[in-house]
């Protein structure tokens, strides 16, 4: 479904991704794990068109994503739940959700989708008219996920969804991600929280210093000696 082939990405003169290739198949949950600064977020931002690869290609279904302007990518069914949530703080929960459904395909089903999102997160229905800047971190993350789902995506990408959340909320977010997957949405997740992420994903890729170091199923990676040593501290 999503095929990233040999991309190199630069910030100015600084190369941050070297020859990165991976793929996400329809219905899968795929994880990109790695330490801070490994280039995980850069990959997601490149898929969303916020960065452009200097070499290589990114294909989604039969589209060349690297040639599409960033604001048009969501129309093709890719939602990006950004790192740090990036909500619109002076808008209500409802308005933030509406902002997720601007493209015509999603707009046509806006009310229906919103009911579905409120079903997933009953808490948000209670807070519907509250400004998102005043919500707790966990609630804000729910809005961010809900806003992504409002686009009715075929592929949803999460960038560090557990960042800054208490362990109990982290568990809840992971549960929700599994639920989204059961609804038939393909998931690409970027995380530092290696163990929990590998437990819920089908396949994972390990990123170090801007290069893909390892890949395999979630279980394989959990049992890998390098992973155990470097990430799980076992």
């Amino acid at each position, binding site marked *: 479904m999503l095929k990233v082939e040999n991309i190199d990405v630069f910030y100015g003169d600084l190369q941050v991704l070297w020859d990165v290739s991976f793929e996400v198949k329809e219905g899968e949950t795929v994880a990109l794990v790695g330490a801070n600064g490994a280039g995980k977020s850069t990959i997601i931002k490149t898929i*969303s068109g*916020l960065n452009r690869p200097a070499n290589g290609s990114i294909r989604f279904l039969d589209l060349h994503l690297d040639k599409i*302007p*960033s*604001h*048009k*990518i*969501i*129309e093709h069914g890719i939602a*990006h739940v*950004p790192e740090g949530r*990036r*909500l*619109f*703080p*002076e*808008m209500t929960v409802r*308005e933030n959700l*509406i*902002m*997720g459904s*601007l*493209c015509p395909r999603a*707009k046509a089903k806006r009310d229906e989708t919103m009911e579905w999102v409120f079903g997933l997160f009953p808490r948000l229905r209670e807070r519907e008219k509250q400004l998102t800047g005043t919500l707790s971190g966990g609630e804000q993350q729910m809005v961010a996920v809900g*806003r992504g789902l409002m*686009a009715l995506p075929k592929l949803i990408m999460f960038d560090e969804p557990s960042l800054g959340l208490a362990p109990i909320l982290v568990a809840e977010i992971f549960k929700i991600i599994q639920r989204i997957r059961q609804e038939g949405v393909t998931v690409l997740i970027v995380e530092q929280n290696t163990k929990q992420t590998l437990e819920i994903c089908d396949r994972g890729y390990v990123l170090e210093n801007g290069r893909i170091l390892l890949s395999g199923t979630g279980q394989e990676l959990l049992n890998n000696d390098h992973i155990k040593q470097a990430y799980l501290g076992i």
Partner: protein
Amino acid sequence: MTVFFQTLVSGILIGGIYALIGMGMTLIMGVMGIINLAHGQLMMVAMYITFVAYTFFHLDPYLSLFVAMPCLFFLGVAIQKFLLNPLMEVETIIPQNQVLMTVGIAIVLTEIARFIFSSTYRSVTTSYTGKVFFLGGISFNVAMTVAFLFAVTLTIVLFWFLLKTDLGRSIRATAQDKEAAILMGVNSRRITIITYGLGAALVASAGSLLIPIFYLFPDIGRPFTTKAFVITILGGMGSTVGAIFGGLTLGIAESMGATYIGMSYKEMVGLIIFLLVLIFLPGGLKRLTKV
């Protein structure tokens, strides 16, 4: 006491129009993060359009609102598209290039107006110029009152647009978090163009509404650019609600200053308030209301 209320009423009436000027400025500031130092000059252009429409086509200034606003919208669109946006592409030593460009635009607009109309003071004398009516012992200038009602209506329409339409929400979203807005499918370049057009149209409406009251000459833009700047700082940069309060505050302050201190100190009172806000309430009224 009557004098006080009379002063207050005049202040509120002019303040409503100042609010229109300030809201246009604050929208542009919110979305692009720049101060539009050509704001008053755009109003001057709208005033000349209204003047021409009245002199040659006998169009009532309140009707030429519907001519001046679209004209200035398209002028604003062109300015943003061809003069301001290209500057975003250029890597610069100073990031405020766009602000400098607006200063240039202001000068060019003023000198074009001087070239066409000369520096002569012009005025539009309508049947209601100078007419007043009384309500509870307080006199209301007819032109000012009508202008105020127009201003209130336009403000309501603007808020409806910003709060209830997808385009309006996209403008607010871009101002709050541009990158996130792009991820949601907002074409941020198009939004900057529409916002500048909208800001220009709002200040154009103020121009048409003020023309039965003010003399018109090419340099009238500059003091209004200053006023727009003061209102925006008073209200808190980027806050439309703040701009309404900023506009009213400035209107009342000027009116009070004119009555109790002296007509010639009118402008000074506004600027003193401006300084006090910068020192004691940086962030403006927005800091108090949080909207």
